[in-house]
């Protein structure tokens, strides 16, 4: 069952997918459904003995392309809609124990190519308004499978957070001589320099001035590219290099493979023009505030939407930069 219900108090859709209650939950490594299928072994999601990078439709999708009209009709105030969309799983490697941080720049570069291909293909589907590429990593984030993988949700609407960001960028543009909000933010970060963690030729990783998590980091394209699909070959290589430096920095700083949420923000695929408004970037939200303490989204964050952060971005960026530079030297 895939169903959307409208929340008129916040002006946003909520997706219901009750079948997800039955999804595979932290199986032992020898029964990982994301491994390749070994000769004589149990059949996994991937019917080959090895693979490079694989994408498949999620067996337990939050949104489905053939979602029926909901049985629950709702009301004019609280309408419902089919939970229509596409949910994919992206397997980064057939090595069950690999992590993105531990992968070669070449493999990350190949993954960038796959992400760009999925953005283009899913974005071309007429009911898809937003292609959201993300990774939940680590049990602290609630992952149910440890195998290195990310996900893609192709939504039939622009989800609230990217929507707010786009509205802010459009507003800024209209009030500032058509300038891009993100380009100006990046210019400020470069000029200040204290929160820059890793700088490549085409991408920069930094802890934003207004980070919502202690070790939140954003990876911005230097050029105002609306989406990952619009990146040049050189830019894609540089994105892989900067991602690698940031991720290795995270793991070196904490001394273990750091859990995180990684999300990509880019142009919606609803047919509107987002040139100069959408600026491709990746955001990381690690839940850790120290090696053994987590930042929970509690009353203020969840109920009020007001984040309280225990550390200043300048401090966390300095530590993260040192770790990333150590990894790079």
């Amino acid at each position, binding site marked *: 069952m895939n169903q959307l219900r409208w929340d008129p108090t916040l002006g946003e859709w909520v997706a219901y997918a009750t079948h997800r209650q039955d999804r595979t939950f932290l199986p032992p490594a020898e029964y990982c459904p994301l491994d390749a299928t070994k000769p004589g072994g149990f059949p996994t999601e991937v019917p080959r003995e090895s693979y490079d990078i*694989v994408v498949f439709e999620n067996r337990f999708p939050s949104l489905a392309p053939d979602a029926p009209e909901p049985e629950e009709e709702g009301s004019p105030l609280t309408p419902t809609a089919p939970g229509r969309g596409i949910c994919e799983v992206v397997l980064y490697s057939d090595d069950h124990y690999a992590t993105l941080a531990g992968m070669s720049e070449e493999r990350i570069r190949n993954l960038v190519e796959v992400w760009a291909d999925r953005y283009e293909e899913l974005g071309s589907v007429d009911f898809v308004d937003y292609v959201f590429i993300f990774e939940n990593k680590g049990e602290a984030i609630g992952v149910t499978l440890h195998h290195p993988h990310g996900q893609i949700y192709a939504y039939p609407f622009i989800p609230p957070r990217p929507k707010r960001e786009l509205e802010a960028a459009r507003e800024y543009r209209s009030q500032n001589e058509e300038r891009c909000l993100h380009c100006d933010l990046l210019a400020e970060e470069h000029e200040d320099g204290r929160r820059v963690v890793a700088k490549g030729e085409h991408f920069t990783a930094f802890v934003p001035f207004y980070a919502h998590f202690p070790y939140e980091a954003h990876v911005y394209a230097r050029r105002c590219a609306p989406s990952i699909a619009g990146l040049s070959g050189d830019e*894609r290589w540089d994105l892989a290099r900067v991602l690698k430096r940031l991720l290795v920095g995270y793991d070196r700083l904490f001394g273990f493979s750091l859990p995180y949420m990684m999300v990509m923000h880019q142009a919606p695929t609803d047919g509107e023009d987002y040139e100069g408004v959408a600026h491709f970037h990746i955001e990381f939200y690690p839940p850790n505030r120290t090696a053994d303490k987590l930042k929970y989204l509690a009353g203020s964050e969840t109920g009020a939407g007001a984040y309280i952060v225990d550390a200043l971005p300048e401090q966390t960026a300095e530590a993260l930069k040192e770790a990333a530079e150590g990894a790079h030297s």
Partner: protein
Amino acid sequence: MSDRFEDNQPGQDEAPVHGARPLGAPEMVKERENKEDGRYIIFYSFGHDEEAREDG
């Protein structure tokens, strides 16, 4: 639904596709198949001469 998506409905496996790529991009081969339950699966492979060691 776009033609591109409809073209890949269950039961319509595709031959490997060598995708268009920007300058400097690795060669990517894309093979699309359908699983027994009708879901699609896409195998992406790249030139292995570009594959370096994994750091662990």
